[in-house]
């Protein structure tokens, strides 16, 4: 069984930043998908660092990535045992490894649309905001107009702008009495023709094969060919199936808490890396 000083799970900004801060140790960085960078791969808006897109930001952070760090792409960690071993699922094989320290950087996932218990049919055309970002930015598919966006946090607002710029008619529906999100993501709305409905939510989805409208709590009927749920992100720590591990797990980035800004994620990852280094040093002294 191969042994690593530190196993880093997740190759988003958190995992990359942590691995970089561990230079000199025997590190394995494991990423499920076929590339590093995580969620930023699908964020093409200029919202990162100094006016960069997600992929630009990733290139920047990877430009001085140490060569001696082992990276396993297309590999999922499927199990972690209390004995400090992990199961890796590679493309065509599985492998057991052991580690001294564990950094968890598995990011977050979107709350699924189904969470909201909206009545009605389950037609095509209902997405989460992240899915729409992936459709537009990675696959070049623009969802059909008009669109209703449920939730006005940062991601809802970013997707709304994106759609609007692609000539999709947009209505934003927010259950609270005012819009959420960072001021800079809200600014563009001024002077634009985007319908905003506050103090309400979607009660029913209409349409058979494809969605053709939604009904709000007060009975208002809005035609829609696309419904996008931007109702929140949840930290993804599913891998920690056992409730109690007899060792410290360094959790960082969006799987610890959802960060609004990428700089915060990188800082948090460095903190986690330092804690791992400290533990290794202490054990060596003993």
């Amino acid at each position, binding site marked *: 069984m191969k042994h690593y000083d530190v196993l880093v799970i997740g190759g988003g900004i958190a995992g990359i930043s942590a691995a970089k801060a561990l230079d000199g140790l025997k590190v394995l960085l494991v990423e*499920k998908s*076929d590339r590093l960078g995580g969620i930023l791969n699908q964020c093409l808006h200029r919202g990162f660092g100094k006016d960069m897109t997600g992929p630009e930001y990733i290139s920047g952070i990877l430009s001085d990535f140490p060569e001696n760090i082992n990276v396993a792409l297309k590999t*999922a960690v499927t199990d972690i045992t209390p004995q400090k071993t992990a199961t890796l699922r590679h*493309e065509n094989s599985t492998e057991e490894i052991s580690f001294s320290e564990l950094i968890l950087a598995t990011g977050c996932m979107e709350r*699924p649309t189904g969470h909201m218990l909206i009545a009605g049919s389950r037609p095509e055309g209902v997405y989460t905001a992240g899915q729409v970002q992936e459709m537009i930015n990675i696959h070049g598919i623009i969802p059909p107009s008009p669109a209703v966006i449920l939730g006005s946090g940062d991601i809802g607002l970013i997707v709304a702008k994106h759609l609007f710029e692609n000539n999709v008619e947009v209505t934003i529906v927010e259950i609270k009495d005012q819009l959420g999100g960072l001021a800079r993501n809200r600014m563009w709305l001024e002077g634009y023709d985007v319908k905003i409905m506050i103090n309400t939510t979607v009660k029913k989805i209409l349409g058979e094969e494809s969605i053709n409208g939604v009904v709000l709590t007060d009975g208002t009927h809005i035609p829609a060919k696309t419904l996008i749920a931007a109702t929140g992100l949840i930290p993804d720590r*599913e891998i920690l199936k056992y409730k109690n591990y007899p060792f410290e797990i360094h959790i960082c980035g969006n799987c610890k808490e959802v960060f609004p800004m990428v700089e915060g994620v990188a800082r948090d990852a460095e903190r986690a890396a330092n804690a791992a280094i400290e533990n290794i040093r202490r054990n060596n002294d003993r």
Partner: protein
Amino acid sequence: MKKYDSVVIGGGVLGAFVLRSLRRYDISCILLEASGDIAGGITRANTAIVYTASDNRPGSLKAEMAKRANENFHELCNDLGVRFSRCGSLMVSFGEKGDEVLRKKLIQGEENGVRGMKIISGSEAKMLQPLLSENVTTALYSPMTGTVNPWELTIAAFENAVQNGAQAKMNAKVIDIIPTDEGYEVKTENDVFFAKTVFNCAGLEADKIHSLVSNDGIRLSIDGADFIVFDKYAPKPDMIIFHETENGKGITAVPTVEGNLIVDSPPREADNSFDTTSEGLDYIIENLNKVLPELDTKRIIRSFGALRPNPHKPDGRSIHSFCIENPSPGFYSLIGIKTPGLTCADEIGKYLAGFAVEYLSAKINEDFDPVRKTGDHIGGEIICLCENITKGEIISAIKRGAKDIHGIKRRTGALMGKCQGSRCSIKIKKILEEYNETL
């Protein structure tokens, strides 16, 4: 015209098991399914419980079948390579009337030979299942109750039937049936199939198919139910919880073989669509609060609706037994087979095959192999990040008959995780498109 000993109409759990049972004998058969894939009807949305016979009248066909089916379920699932969990059940009540119903079920169950049932107190129930409410007055414990994934079971039975020489045709909606001297001409839009025997397993449409050869006036009325699904990581009961209110059935909570918890509503009106209703969903949430108050509703990931066909005599009276009709020689109809139809599917299949054997004087098929051969799991890039399903597994599902994202879900378990496909559905659609282009 293609000639068969038997035509099976409908690719739900019943059609699949009838088809498989026919191949235990030397009977040539074909299954005709209206839609593009099997397991897309009633079978796709139900409570997934493998019942004991404690709900059925002693001496009835249902009781007899449910008892045998329940006892043999483990072996059946072993043969078919399907997950089965004999998790046991607790039926809980909250007052005098409910307590009385539980005591009656115990007596009925024991009369039907159900093993291991026991009445326990509310506090004992809470010790067994700590998430239960403190207000439970009585509980009926039943260790033999289990759960199975209905579409996994259906697909497995179907694949095993085909491995044993059965044929099948999708997108083949039966539109007419003409009796002839030797049998029946079964017409779809593009084909005519001749068969000596016909098995009508058309689910929600079974009364229409039946009326093509019979004027006995049996018809279906349709009602429905709503369901919610909790993610795998939610703390949950590890037994099935049946909720008996003071006025009849409440909710049912089932820890599925995948590790989720599904919760259903009692029957409610339906307009012939699989839509969910706010009435049903609200009922579930309200009653979960009463029965399992500590369940974390933030962990709900999905809701879905179900349709249930209820058979009636022409005068409107309900038919309570399994409605299995033989309106003309060699023609058999299953009309409105509801709970425990999933549990009894193999029994019903064998029962109907028995008629065919007699009618056709068919011999045993010595080559029949009840064990489903499953392909090796193939690797490749991980596409479904929640369930770690690879591209290879998705392509293998397409080769085995998946036509769309639902078919992939039912064959691989992709899209069923916590993100409900938000991270992989687009990739899966692309794989489907690419595969279809190479054909």
